[in-house]
């Protein structure tokens, strides 16, 4: 089977608008979670989130901005980074063999909310003419295809919190089966609008703001965890058929060698140990790997009571006794839950861990939970590690479980 090289990485995320800045802050244990500014802070019970320091006006002209929801703005900048990092010149490629896969849960949430506000709150007919084009969930993927002339497959996956993990996995599959040579794959989410936050609050699944330190409110695996914290951002990777990458002299970050996809069918939100276990096993099987090969797990680790306990149990099923010694960390403790973009962001982080031999910590794990008793790399990053294979989990409302595996390029 054809192999998939990861040749470019790009992020616009809480804690960093490029991979270096993000990773440096993660290793330092800094948190991008904060109290949201007014007016959000005045109307929400738990006004916390993980925003990105990003102004679209610095990247796009005024006419362009009219057509781009924030989600697409974030994505276009992150994708451009990945392309630059890969030193890809699409003019030199067969563009019908290049495609795009994007994962997003909400698409253009800000545009959608503005439109409803115009119609229902202002009782006006003046909905912006670009609303549909900016809000539609495939807008981001479409603009990437247009901007770079990529006329191969152009797909958008929306499977809630696993959307962009699915996007990466499906992109890799297309390269493996020979349809394409290059795929731009990633995810984007810009959910920090009042309506979206209010809807999530209604589910009682968001973290309670820590009164002393809002930045510590997301506590994966801790006994004191109270829920997840929403974040915004985008992350993209350039994926290439291995020989194609080698032939053009590309620098290969790692190999995307495993992808497991299963579904929990028991409940619309409640995760299942069986589903998560199966997804991890499927990823290992697709990579031809034994669980003993995994050196680090970037957990889904949302900070909800249910996910963290179930994921811990699933890790024990997969790894057996070794589950207690494989380092597992949730970087959501620092960058929040980017929903549709989470899978891609965390995979980029996992690949960077591979390259640098550093495992970022799970922060704010000050009080252990008896049901969560693994090595979560609490409080401090580990450096100087020999990492050859990493596994990244993404488990979603609706039940789509997606697991990705990356292996070091150095072994080839």
């Amino acid at each position, binding site marked *: 089977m054809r192999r998939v090289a990861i040749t470019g990485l790009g992020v616009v995320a809480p804690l960093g608008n490029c991979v270096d800045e993000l990773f440096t802050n993660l290793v330092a244990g800094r948190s991008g979670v904060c109290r949201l500014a007014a007016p959000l802070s005045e109307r929400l019970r738990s006004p916390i989130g993980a925003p990105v320091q990003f102004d679209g006006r610095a990247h796009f002209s005024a006419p362009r901005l009219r*057509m781009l929801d924030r989600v697409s703005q974030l994505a276009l900048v992150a994708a451009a980074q990945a392309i630059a990092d890969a030193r890809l010149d699409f003019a030199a490629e067969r563009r019908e063999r290049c495609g795009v896969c994007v994962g997003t849960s909400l698409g253009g949430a800000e545009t959608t909310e503005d439109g409803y506000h115009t119609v229902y709150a202002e009782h006006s007919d003046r909905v912006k003419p670009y609303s549909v084009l900016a809000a539609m969930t495939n807008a981001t993927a479409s603009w990437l295809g247009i901007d770079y002339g990529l006329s191969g497959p152009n797909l958008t996956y929306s499977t809630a919190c696993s959307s962009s993990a699915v996007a990466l996995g499906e992109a890799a599959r297309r390269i493996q089966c020979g349809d394409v040579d290059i795929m731009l794959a990633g995810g984007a989410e810009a959910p920090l609008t009042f309506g979206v936050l209010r809807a999530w609050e209604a589910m009682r699944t968001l973290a309670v703001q820590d009164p002393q330190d809002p930045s510590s409110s997301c506590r994966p695996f801790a006994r004191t965890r109270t829920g997840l914290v929403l974040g915004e951002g985008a992350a993209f990777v350039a994926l290439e058929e291995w020989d194609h990458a080698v032939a053009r002299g590309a620098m290969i970050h790692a190999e995307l060698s495993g992808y497991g996809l299963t579904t929990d069918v028991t409940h619309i939100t409640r995760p299942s140990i069986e589903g998560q276990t199966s997804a991890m096993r499927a990823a290992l099987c697709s990579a031809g790997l034994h669980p003993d090969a995994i050196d680090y797990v970037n957990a889904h680790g949302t900070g909800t009571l249910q996910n963290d306990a179930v994921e811990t149990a699933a890790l024990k099923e997969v790894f057996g006794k070794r589950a207690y010694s494989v380092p597992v960390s949730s970087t959501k403790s620092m960058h929040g839950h980017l929903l549709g973009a989470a899978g891609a962001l965390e995979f980029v982080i996992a690949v960077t861990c591979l390259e640098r031999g550093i495992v970022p910590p799970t922060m704010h794990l000050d009080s252990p939970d008896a049901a969560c008793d693994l090595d979560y790399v609490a409080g401090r990053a580990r450096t100087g590690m020999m990492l050859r294979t990493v596994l990244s989990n993404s488990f979603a409302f609706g039940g789509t479980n997606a697991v990705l595996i990356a292996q070091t390029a150095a072994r080839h």
Partner: protein
Amino acid sequence: MSTLETLQDLLIREYKLTREQLAPDAQLSALGVDSLGMLELMFQIEDRFGITLPDDNPTNLLTVNDVVVYIDKLVAPQREAPMTPTCTP
């Protein structure tokens, strides 16, 4: 201020253009104002000129001057229209 100058001010603000770019014969599409952009501009024209534009979607507005003529045709009759009596004597 003339209709042309007022329209130019709108486009300068919304599209970050210069007055020199907005000569009467300048092509709107070349300035980044596409068909959807025109629809959005209609809202601002209504507000700025105090007129109500018809619901039809004019397709012959290709240059800055085309829009000026369009506005002027609508402004004159709407300003001259007699007040409709609200009560009979």
